[in-house]
């Protein structure tokens, strides 16, 4: 991976936060992406009757294919909420599905269950609740009482540089714990300073913004923001 990534240690394991929002663990040759929310447009159409552009799965897979092409991982971990719900997973466009299956060729592919897609899917790979690899534990929702070295998703963190209006998807990390940004094209975000998310981390924590390059920025301590809950 080139100099555009941010290199850090999580519980002693060397990690790279890629500008795309994916995580690469060199020792395991493992690529991790979270909250793909594939087929979200299908669920929105079914439940709310809105006809969003039905191209988000294609767009998400396009970016994932690029990351896989560049990193050539032997293992890909999808960290939960890979599908917007199980019905959406079943209704996946055949072309998108073929693409997804092709990406799994020649590597291990792990679907971690999320709250949106609890249960098995039939898009190849293996499913599980959590996974341990290279001193790290991969699960969908952070466990406040977890052992160090936890990697999770779920919160879709976002943050911006003070003085710049733009907010970007970001990783949040403090050396013990890491939360990944949402990788899916149609995903909103939660401000990384929100107590529910910020409280999971030590005072000294970083947001690593995605974009043209992965950009680390310190987050303000939790206290400042939670004084008046």
């Amino acid at each position, binding site marked *: 991976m080139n100099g555009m990534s941010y290199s850090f240690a999580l519980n002693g394991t060397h990690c790279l936060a890629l500008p795309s929002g994916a995580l690469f663990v060199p020792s395991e040759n493992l690529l991790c992406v979270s909250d793909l929310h594939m087929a979200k447009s299908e669920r929105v159409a079914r439940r709310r*009757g809105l*006809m969003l552009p039905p191209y988000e799965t294609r767009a998400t897979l396009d970016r994932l294919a690029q990351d896989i092409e560049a990193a050539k991982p032997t293992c890909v971990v999808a960290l939960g909420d890979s599908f917007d719900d199980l019905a959406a997973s079943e209704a996946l466009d055949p072309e998108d599905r073929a693409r997804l299956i092709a990406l799994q060729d020649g590597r291990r592919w792990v679907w971690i269950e999320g709250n949106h897609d609890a249960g098995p899917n039939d898009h190849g790979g293996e499913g599980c609740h959590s996974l341990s690899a290279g001193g790290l534990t991969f699960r969908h929702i952070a466990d406040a009482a977890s052992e160090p070295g936890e990697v999770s998703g779920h*919160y879709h963190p976002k943050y911006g540089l003070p003085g710049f*209006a733009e907010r970007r998807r970001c990783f949040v990390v403090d050396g013990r714990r890491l939360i990944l940004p949402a990788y899916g094209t149609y995903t909103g975000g*939660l401000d990384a300073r929100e107590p529910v998310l910020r409280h999971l981390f030590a005072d000294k924590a970083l947001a690593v913004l995605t974009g043209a390059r992965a*950009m680390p920025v310190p987050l303000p301590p939790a206290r400042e923001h939670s004084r008046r809950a």
Partner: protein
Amino acid sequence: MTLPARLAPFFARRGWALHRHQAEMLDRSDEPALLLIAPTGAGKTLSGFLPTIAELAEAPRSGLHTLYVSPLKALATDIKRNLLTPVEELGLPIRIEDRTGDTSQAARKRQRVDPPHILLTTPESLALLLSYEDAPKIFEGLSRIVVDEIHALAESKRGDQLFLSLSRLEAIAPGLRRVGLSATVDNPQEIAQLLARNPQPCAILHADPGEEPDLSMLDAGRAPPWAGGAALHAIPAVLEEVKRHKTTLIFHNTRAQAEVFFHNLWLQNDDGLPIAIHHGSLSREQRQAVEAAMLRGDLKAIVCTGTLDLGIDWGDVDLVIQMGGPKYVKRLVQRIGRANHRAGVPSKAILVPANRFEVLECTCAIAAARLGDLDGTPRGPGPLDVLCQHILIRACAGPFAADDLYAEVRTVGGYASLSRAAFDDCLEFCATGGYALRAYDRWKRLMLRDGFWQLRDPRAAKRIRMNIGTIEDTGSLNVRLRSGAHLGEIEEYFASTLTPGDTFLIGGQVVRFESLREMTVEVTRRRDANPRVASFGGGKFPTSVALTHRILDLLQQSDWPELPRHTAEWLNLQRRFSKLPEADRMLVETFEAEERWHAAFWGFAGWNAHQTLGLLLTHRMEQRGLDPLGFVATDYALLITGLREVEDPASLLDPRDIREGFETWLQGNAVMKRTFRGVATIAGLIEKNLPGQRKTGRQATFSTDILYDTLVKYDPDHLLLRVTREQAQHGLVDFGRIEEMLSRIQGRVDHVRAKRVTPLAAPLLLERGRVPVAGAARERLMAEQAARLLEEAGIEAL
């Protein structure tokens, strides 16, 4: 026709006589469509209602007789009060009610079952009523519709929505008579065509225009500053005028300018004159308090913006002050009408130029207003995003046949030339999203059953109803005191640039930013000498084409006896050291100043178009390695700053390159995304309001920018992208004005390479709001900032 006998006592008791136009409105009340053009205060609204009151007094009946639609909720409430007086005094069997967003749920339900004789409402509330399945029952006996302030509605999509609603009403109640009430405008015929059922004609009545207004430019005792828009130099003179008059309205072009002026006015208001502030970003409570104080006669002046262009008649206003260039002669004339319109006294208005260029603009605007030479922007055809919403609203009311709806829509002036293909595109978009590469088969929004279109899921009607309307949401956030009081709104963008401890102005108060919680900006009161000024949304108006041409003509005079000496001398200097801009050529001046190269493009195409031109030209310059750093736009010129001189400006202005830049590169720019956001919301691609929505902000929404980028990449010919490009011809992007400029100059570019900054360009160097060139440089700035923060936080590595 004379006054009906039953109404005579009411008029007699007040010593009133019918105005000529009021009598004519009664005489011609059978016309299918009738447009009254009258200045403010000519008893316009009463003219609209007299025939209704006469008819109901002569022949009492039950059911809805007349629908009154105005752009302002407050106007509906105020008019109800005014109409109730004669009705109650004369004991007429007429029930009058209003129905707006503020009407209680219970009252609304009752109105649907048992409508009043006269219902006062807004375009949005009318569209909502038409979305109910019982709409035909509510409106079946409707006899007249009165559209108040139609000139204001006709300028926006709210008007397009209203006119589409009229076509629906006509289908329910054939033979419905339409009445429009308008202020003085440049294009009565155009408005008449919007009002009438196409292709029927529409009669136009002109009321007596009244006395010639008394117009002048303020003599502040000194020259205005070179640049800026706050006109703070004029405060002492403005206070003097306020003192000399009974009640003064002080109009500003933007909310931010009004805030700055008001703040500084109070710092100099040694006599403690009661002066308040009123604009669209202040909380409703605050605005109502100001309006009430005004009605009681407690105020000497109100610092305000366009929100007071319309609305309740304040008879006691005897002076209107226009701060800054008026941008549109038409708007100036309408504003002037806010003063002294009761008796036969001329309206009085004073224009206050905020800088040297505005001296030219004010001079030209006064000349045009005296001649009654009004300007307008020609209307394009009815926008398709509004039509999409109309189709969804129609579907909420029940199944419909496409042929019927198409025929109905074609009776609307703005949609008279709508092709069947375009209509079908809109219908297809509503039904399936209209995507080229992938179709929703199972979960369509509209289904065709037995030849009739209907909602697949009837529950969708509730959500569609919650999102009716075309008023653009600028993405603003509420501002609240910690103690809970609501102060108003600021732009989301501005809010995101605040850090705790920053102070800014809102409603004339200095407040300190404490925190951003969910969708609310929390502040505390604070004294601070140098607060920032919030941005409030509601973009700048560019100066009109006609007024711009007047300014160009003025510049070509051999001398300027009508201008103040300081301004005439300034123009003479420019003539000596460079050239004065001409309408059919483009003057480009390049010079070095402050260790940077500058290029001033005198496009005279208005602020928005110059902003867009700035984006396009700097992009081209970056491609050519000319190292542009940024640009600043005004209504008259674009100033680009860079590390190297622009040696061949004519080649930058090649129309093919500029058009290609618009078609390709600009499509990815934020201005296009902002245009798309409005289109997508109105057309119903997304829903802003959801039932039972809790504002947790959490993962709930993602921005329409993502949808835009996705469409551009995967479905570039999608209906909503076509609509977005069409709308970019006007408004924020205003590419139509760039085209107007290109066709004027026809490639004739005069390049003046000046030794130093030219007199005309000097003010441009002082203008604020420089736009940095996006791209690599910005990314680098962010990285530097991030590194600095890391160092401060003492975090080196994890």
